[in-house]
């Protein structure tokens, strides 16, 4: 849970694009289709196990293995979904918080005050990123080469505009401080 400062308001909470998530679970979807191959190879399985097992036992074993396989994939899917869902970029009227849920037991939180943001760069790479409107967001902050990178974020152009507009409205400009 992110503890907000007094008078701090959340302006935007954004996650990676669903298409990026779908790309991660695509291998799981393919793996979940594997048990469908059992009926195709049923004759081969009956020949292989027919010496020791009755046909009903072979069906029971294949059902058991298929269910075990699907249970394993089900668990892995929820781990991936949890990592996706808890991986967020939070923009408040005072700072930017990048929560990087690396895996279930590794969480990396980077915070940058809005005043320290010097440059916001977006990258939309490739035809799929262009079609589905997702990309990488680079936040250059003051102090050496500190950079926050959020990959596969949805609608990066809008997020960039929102960060810049919040920065302009909430952070006193240097011009007004030094007339």
């Amino acid at each position, binding site marked *: *849970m992110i503890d907000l400062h007094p008078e701090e308001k959340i302006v935007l909470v954004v996650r990676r694009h669903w298409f990026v998530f779908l790309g991660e679970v695509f291998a799981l979807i393919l793996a979940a289709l594997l048990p469908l191959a059992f009926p195709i190879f049923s004759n081969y399985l009956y020949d292989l196990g027919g010496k*020791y*097992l009755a046909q009903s*036992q072979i069906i029971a074993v294949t059902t*058991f293995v298929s269910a*075990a396989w699907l*249970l394993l994939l089900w668990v892995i899917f*929820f*781990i991936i979904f949890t990592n996706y869902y808890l991986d967020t970029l939070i923009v408040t009227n005072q700072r930017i918080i990048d929560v990087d*849920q690396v895996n279930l037991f590794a969480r990396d939180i980077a915070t940058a005050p809005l005043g320290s943001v010097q440059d916001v760069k977006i990258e939309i790479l490739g035809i799929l990123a262009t079609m589905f409107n997702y990309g990488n967001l680079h936040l250059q902050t003051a102090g050496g080469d500190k950079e926050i990178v959020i990959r596969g974020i949805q609608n990066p152009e809008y997020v960039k505009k929102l960060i810049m507009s919040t920065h302009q409205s909430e952070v006193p400009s240097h011009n007004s401080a030094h007339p």
Partner: protein
Amino acid sequence: MNPGELLKIENPAEVISFAMPIILVALVLFFLVLAIVLSYHWRKYGVGRVRAAIFMWTYLIGGIIFIGAMVTAKLSY
């Protein structure tokens, strides 16, 4: 040469019968531990109570269906 002879297993049916409950118990434990870890994460990291409940129940119901299929297959073996 069939796989039974290759592994020097006298009767593969007995090995399968022995392995099924072990696999079942291991997967159920894995499933339950993950249920606890996931629910902890979802509540601790600021997800609302309703969303966390929907997530957990989806996870549990799906898991129970697959575990039920495994148990049924084991019983009919």
